[in-house]
């Protein structure tokens, strides 16, 4: 009964932030921070190792030695990369008049079925529901729940996500919806519209969540059927959502970024 009440309340009054949800997120976010840092460190070790395998033996030997002897150097390298990514993000977000905040991805959805990430910025940093989340490569998703120090971001690949979009060249519009997989579909594009593989898809600005002109993805597959009104268009997201580490939340008010 309790679960049915929860589901009904959640489905009908979507804007209500339940107290328990915030409490659990508040408790878990420090652990998520910790585990993400550890996981990133392990991934970095593997990445560096695999990279070294591919270069010449001489470089391989020197780099391996360097990695082994100089842990500090590796840390600085990672910090440098982080600064570089942050710099790209702030530069990109700074082009717009809107205030923004840079956030780090600290976790993923606890279930198999939703495409959600957790970021380490919440209402303490003026993050609120329905704000758009982007990187310099394009749209990531939007905030669906904001706690004090962390927030949930619904990715554009989630099956409940929809972004009003248009083709950059032809300006034909459609709606980019998530499929639950790592790819999106563009709906409501008439069969008469000329679309080619490789066409860029950008946000149209309609809908009030995503500003106009953000890169959504690239067309990778088109299926036209004579008797159908609309084309089946598959769009690869411009952001690699499986490995995104830092994002920018575009704030709504006049707060400073």
């Amino acid at each position: 009964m309790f679960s049915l009440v929860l589901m009904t309340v959640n489905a009908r009054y979507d804007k209500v932030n339940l107290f328990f949800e915030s409490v659990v997120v508040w408790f878990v976010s420090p652990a998520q921070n910790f585990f993400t840092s550890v996981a990133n460190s392990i991934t970095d070790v593997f990445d560096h190792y695999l990279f070294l395998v591919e270069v010449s033996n001489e470089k391989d030997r020197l780099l391996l030695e360097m990695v082994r002897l100089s842990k500090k150097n590796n840390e600085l390298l990672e910090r440098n990369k982080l600064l570089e990514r942050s710099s790209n993000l702030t530069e990109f977000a700074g082009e717009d008049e809107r205030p923004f905040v840079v956030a780090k991805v600290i976790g993923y959805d606890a279930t198999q079925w939703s495409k959600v990430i957790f970021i380490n910025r919440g209402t303490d940093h003026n993050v609120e529901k329905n704000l758009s989340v982007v990187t310099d490569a394009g749209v990531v998703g939007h905030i669906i729940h904001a706690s004090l120090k962390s927030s949930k971001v619904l990715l554009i690949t989630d099956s409940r996500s929809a972004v009003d979009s248009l083709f950059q060249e032809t300006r034909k519009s459609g709606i980019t919806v998530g499929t639950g997989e790592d790819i999106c579909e563009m709906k409501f594009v008439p069969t008469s519209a000329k679309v080619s593989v490789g066409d860029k898809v950008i946000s149209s600005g309609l809908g009030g969540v995503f500003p106009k002109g953000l890169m959504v993805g690239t067309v990778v597959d088109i299926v036209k059927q004579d008797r159908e009104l609309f084309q089946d268009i598959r769009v690869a997201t411009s952001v690699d959502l499986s490995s995104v580490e830092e994002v920018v939340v575009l704030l709504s008010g006049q707060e400073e970024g």
Partner: protein
Amino acid sequence: MTYLVLIIALVFLLLSIQTTFLRVVFPGDIVPDLILIAAVYCGIHLKKSRGIWVAALIGFFQDCLSGGLLGVNFLSKGLAGLFFCVIKDKIIVQGIIPIGFFIFATSLVDGMIYFLAMTSLLGGQVKGNFLFSSIILFGVCNAVIAPFLFYIFDKVRQWLHRKFPSQVFESI
């Protein structure tokens, strides 16, 4: 009290691993559900009806850390806890094959509950073909992980029982 705090700490540890490490280890679309395996374990090994409530509670925590409909996992994990709590005396859930089989079946039910809840309450916003294509792999993935996880849970349970003797679990 210490016992309860330790159990809750373990649940939060499991949730943290579910939302961080697993995506690194399983970078594809299919990720095992540690919470589902823990819920089944609780249903089998906790005494009386405690398994139902603990399973439902960890399902609720999972709901809070998910972008899905709040209450879906509370229901599905609670039902898993209830099912195994009721039938635990009538079946044998020991060994790799029985554990794998029951976890596989529970995973299918869990996926179906999610699908039905999302389609009925959110008006068909979930693509069925995606769900059905991945649900089998999801079940297999859970079934493969489950015996190993059950082994770890057994060890933790034995350690807890030695350090803090209580009547919470079935006899070891």
